[in-house]
């Protein structure tokens, strides 16, 4: 079983985020980036499959300033190989999916496991679009994966805590909500060691396509509300409703 895990860097939310001068994007000049938390879970679930059923795990990321460290960390955690995609700057999840699809199509694989969403755009689209480009099935909000021969058994979470179990033929794309256990820690000494002994394969991005066709027209901080007023009785509520003319 070969598993490819596309990884994405997102702004670290502990930083103070600011909108840039264009008013349409984050000012990324001083922002620190970190691995999207859901992608970390996707990698963990893939590595758990490797530990339990014996899979070959490849981590993949678009080349950026911190991508090397990201990929070396994945290798230190137990991924078998790492690929970075060069020559493209995807502007949305469609282009990112196209970029990953180009690279993944050229590799043999059984599963693509990615985070169900990322904290930057909250699209939750990368998995489904990737599956569309690759022409294979996709399941999102996955909380557990088990390999049985050529198919995989998937646990998917619905609203209200309802769980479903799916049998999916491979190849398939899985959007991981949470791994069965907390993502493992990669010791820095191991990362440093791997940095010296292992190399990251480079693959060209290829054609990114035209993207989603939608554009961000305006970006701003949420406006501060007036604050809530706590009511203590039905009478008070009626009073308020009368004031606004609803009763």
């Amino acid at each position, binding site marked *: 079983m070969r598993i490819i895990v596309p990884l994405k860097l997102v702004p670290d939310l*502990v930083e103070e985020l600011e909108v840039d001068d264009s008013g349409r994007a984050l000012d990324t000049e001083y922002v*620190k980036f970190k691995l999207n938390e859901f992608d970390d879970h996707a990698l963990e679930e893939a590595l758990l499959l490797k530990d339990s059923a014996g899979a070959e795990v490849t981590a993949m990321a678009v080349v950026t300033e911190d991508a090397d460290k990201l990929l070396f960390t994945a290798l230190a955690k137990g991924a078998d190989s790492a690929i970075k995609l060069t020559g493209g700057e995807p502007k949305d999840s469609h282009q990112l999916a196209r970029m990953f699809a180009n690279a993944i199509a050229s590799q043999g694989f059984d599963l693509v496991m990615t985070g169900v969403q990322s904290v930057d755009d909250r699209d939750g689209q990368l998995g489904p679009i990737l599956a569309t480009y690759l022409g294979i099935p996709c399941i999102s909000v996955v909380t557990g994966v088990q390999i049985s021969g050529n198919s995989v058994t998937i646990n998917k979470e619905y609203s209200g805590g309802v769980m479903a179990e799916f049998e999916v033929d491979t190849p398939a794309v899985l959007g991981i909500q949470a791994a069965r256990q*907390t993502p493992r*820690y990669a010791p*820095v*000494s191991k990362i*440093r*060691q791997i940095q010296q002994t292992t190399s990251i394969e480079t693959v060209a991005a290829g054609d990114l396509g035209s993207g989603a066709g939608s554009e961000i027209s305006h970006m701003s901080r949420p406006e501060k509300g007036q604050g809530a007023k706590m009511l203590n009785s039905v009478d008070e509520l009626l009073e308020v409703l009368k004031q606004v003319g609803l009763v």
Partner: protein
Amino acid sequence: MLTPLEQIAFIVLVVVCLGLGYRGFSRIIQVVRSGGKTEPFDHLVRRFINALIDVGLQKPVFKARPIVSIFHAFIFFGFSFYILVNISDLLAAYVADWNTIGGGPVAGVFNLLADIFSILVLVGMIFFLIRRFVAKPDVLKYNPNVKLYPGVSAGGIRRDSLIVGTFILLHVGSRWLGTVFHLAASGHTDPWLPTASLMAGVFSGLSHDALSIGMHVSWWLAMGLIFLFIPYFPRSKHLHLMVAPINLALGRETPRGVMGPVEDVTSPGAVTLSDLPWPQILDAYACIMCNRCQEVCPAHQSGTSLSPAALEINKRYFLNDNAKYLVKGGEQPSLLTYAISEDAVWACTTCYACVKVCPVGNEPMMDIIELRRQLVFDGRIPDELAEVLRGLDEKGNSFGESARKRSRWTRDLYFEIKDAAQEPVQYLWYVGDFASYNQDCQETSRKVARVLHAAGVDFGILMKGEKSTGNDVRRIGEEGLFEALAEDNLKTLADGQFEEIFTTDSHTFNALKNEYPRLGGDFTVKHYSTFILQLVKSGQIQLKKKLNIRATFHDPCYLGRYNGIYDDPREIMELCGVSIVEMPRNKENSFCCGAGGGQIYMKEHPDLTQRPSENRIEEAVALDAVGYFTVACPKDLTLYADAVKTSGNKDKLVVRDIIDYVLEAMALPEPAPAAAKA
């Protein structure tokens, strides 16, 4: 003198017993040699001379438990003198007319000492047997969750103690009785043998033949037992009398705050016993199983599964059972399966109390750090610790906060602090994570800044360029992250222009002072207590008011026990008019707050009975009319402020930093709101 038959029988006994004992001793040497490398030892002659002097004066033993130590001294001095007694008795067995009784004054003094020491050894030994088998003090018991090797939980230590105790009683008692029989046979007493003479009358009615048999039997019991005991010796804790002086001579001479390097970066730390540096294997043979280390261990006292004593004892019992397989290169199980549990490895606060108190120079704490190094390398660490380490790696602080917020605490000051990364300063203040990010500690940091500003000191901080020094990261076992942090910090420091560094954080102080020089960072580094004291003495800080209060002082482990600074913070307090009331556990014996070695980042152990910080607060509350608990480490401020509340002592004790006293004693005018920073 022995009969010729007895003389031959004794020689046969000696040869057989030495032959049987040889294997045990040579195995010990082979097992110790199987251990990992260590930094080479120099000045061996000086080391051994010093160790023998210390042992001779019983200094390592008297570090704790003074009463027990007196009885130990009885046995120690008695046994030391008994080397001469045994030689004399051997000569008496083989050399015709060799007899010290009734000899000249030299023989007389010899007899007197032998007589007195015999009684002292017997008294000492009876004391220890009563202590172990009748009094059964709690210090000899382990928390129920401590991992014990099967031989230990089956009562191996009691059995060993009984065997050793019986041997000593029989060996010394028989020798003394032999003298009694001798006097009874000669029909008169000897002023050089006061206690034997007292007893001689009891046996005076016996026939000469009976007394002669008595003398022969007692000689055999005294001398024969020594050699009968030799094959058992390598298995017994009594071996400490040979290994302890060696272990003390080979003790670490590098500063306490420097950790040993990782020997093999592809597999750091230790999984098995032989992965430990060889002196740490020797520790198991030196251990006398007194549990002093456990008694001072904050983790054991708070109910966790960590016992540094059990760790050494388990190692020893494992070796007793398996040394013969190990020396053949047999596969070894992980230390975690028999010596210490994984949760116990994560319970250590690295306070160094166990190492400091050990009478035989053992370093159980170092084993724990070696085990941590390997666990970290395998990614086997508590989740919450992983989270903190990730934050330290990504952002350079243990709070997982943005590096840009590091200097935010300075905003509420009415003056600007210089950015030492941008402009030259005389003193570089290394603030540390806690003092920068923790809200309570930020207030203390501002007080330090106010004091220095008012005194006109030229100082600055590194703002967002400062990262955690990684002192605790290294003690968690994350060697790679420690190196990465140190490299970044050393680069930042190399770019700064300053004369000296001072720091408000004792953990940071330890790393900068002891660990960084080995990585190329050679700076003059002072703890703020030393720095402020100098400023007070030079008159740059003027103390105008005497506070006239009574307070106690808590020595932080990394300032006191690790770096030997006890007086500077106390002197500051006194200069401020604070009269110091010491807690029973002070200075070298200070009790850890429980936060070090990564504990502050981890969940509490599920078996926790009482937090070390609460234990400490109770100690302070018991003092007479002390209203203030003084700290000199930012972590302590938050921990003890909590502990005062959770232990229900909010009305009795106020936690203050030494800088609180200084600021108050300076009697500075409060800055008017209008004077706030422009």
